[in-house]
């Protein structure tokens, strides 16, 4: 039996818990790193308490689990530490892109209306993904039985695609000018000549 001073013993126990790929029990310590070293269980326990205290305010803590002792990243660091690992979900499906396109171009639109156009049901998963991504949100309810949510796109959606507004879609622009349409609609709704109208005068 060899001897070892307390400081060395503490270092050894600490290092072996850190190095082990499974929790370390006192028994395991005694049959491996401490084999051939004369040391009581009480002593080992005292050292474990010391180590636990040393690490209580650090980035990693000593914790006791069923099968022994283990170092673990401090709980409260959880969210910040998560950035160490990155998860890449699969590419978006065609169903999702079509749903997003419909919401973008036909907003505000209900899920039922999307389903009507696409001819298939829209999975909750797709809506959830779009909402979690921050691209789509409920903007109101349609006053029909069931009061379904009406969906529209968000500013984040516009930012992502570097659009200042949905009207910037070059592929979908038709050559009719805004003025022309305004004129047409005004005469349709107001029954007035538009030549001299100012917006203020168009009040209902």
């Amino acid at each position, binding site marked *: 039996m060899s001897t070892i001073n307390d400081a060395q013993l503490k270092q050894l126990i600490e290092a072996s818990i850190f*190095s082990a790929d499974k929790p370390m029990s006192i028994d395991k310590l005694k049959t491996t790193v401490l084999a051939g070293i004369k040391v009581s269980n009480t002593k080992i326990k005292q050292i474990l308490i010391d180590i636990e205290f040393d690490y209580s305010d650090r980035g990693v803590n000593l914790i006791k689990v069923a099968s022994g002792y283990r170092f673990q990243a401090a709980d409260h660091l959880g969210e910040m530490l998560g950035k160490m690992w990155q998860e890449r979900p699969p590419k978006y499906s065609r169903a999702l*892109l079509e749903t997003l396109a419909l919401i973008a171009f036909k907003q505000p639109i209900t899920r039922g209306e999307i389903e009507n156009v696409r001819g298939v049901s829209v999975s909750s998963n797709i809506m959830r993904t779009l909402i979690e991504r921050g691209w789509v949100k409920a903007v109101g309810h349609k006053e029909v039985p069931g009061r379904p949510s*009406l969906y529209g796109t968000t500013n984040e959606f516009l930012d992502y695609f570097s659009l200042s507004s949905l009207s910037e879609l070059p592929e979908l622009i038709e050559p009719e000018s805004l003025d022309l349409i305004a004129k047409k609609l005004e005469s349709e709704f107001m029954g007035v000549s538009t030549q001299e109208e100012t917006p203020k005068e168009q009040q209902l």
Partner: protein
Amino acid sequence: MTESQSTPPLPEQPVADVNNNDTTQMVQQALPLAFVRGEAVIDKPEDLFIPPDALEIFLEAFEGPLDFLLYLIKKQKFNIVDLPIQEITLQYMEYVDLMREMKLELAAEYLVMAAMLAEIKSRLLLPRNNVEDDDEEDPRAELIRRLQEYEIFKQAAADLDNLPRIERDTFLPHIDIPDTVQPEVIHPDVDFQELVVAFQVILKRAKAFTHHEITPEVLSTRERMSQLLERLAQTKDFVPFQTLFDVTEGKSGVVVTFLAVLELVKETLIEVIQTAAYGQIHVRSKPAEVE
């Protein structure tokens, strides 16, 4: 000089004398012992004659002819700088002959080395050219250079092996990651063109699609409809009609807002009231029906 004499090895002889000029004798003495023991890793009783397999094992202990030559040189305590080619060639040839006798498959590199040694030896035996010739150099020089260079890296490899390393001397900590730690999600990228294509596909597929005239104005209107609905949803109260307009958007912006309001009214998503003729117009989102 005699090249070699094939006499049987004398296993009982001790390590060769460095200053022994009888090279043939020295080779014979050195070989069996050296082959089975020496610095090689083989752990065989000292007094054993070379067992059939030992030579092969011995061969494996070397990293090739340079390594083996270095061994012979060190074993015989030859100074590499004064390398006695004659003696070392004899030893090497004995060794190669022995391998042949044992019918071991000789690596090509060993034969190349044998040829090189023989060539050096023959050049050394030729009468020296007395004419000053810049190109003339000691034929041993290249061999010695190679032996030295090999020795350097043989030692470097041994030094590398002695460095502390992971798995053997260096132990890395493993810690648990609490469940509260959630990996950061990297969302897939979408190109805007994909969206446009998706929409065009829908339009093609849905022939009965009624609002297939997509114009920027309609888009603006529908976008404005979302914005208005969202804004009105923030309060249950009526808001003044004119506050929905932003004059800084200019005429076209105001028209778009106006069209959006009309569309929302048409779809009964908002209520518009006017308490008196030419009075203030108020708008609110349609309240939920009260049970």
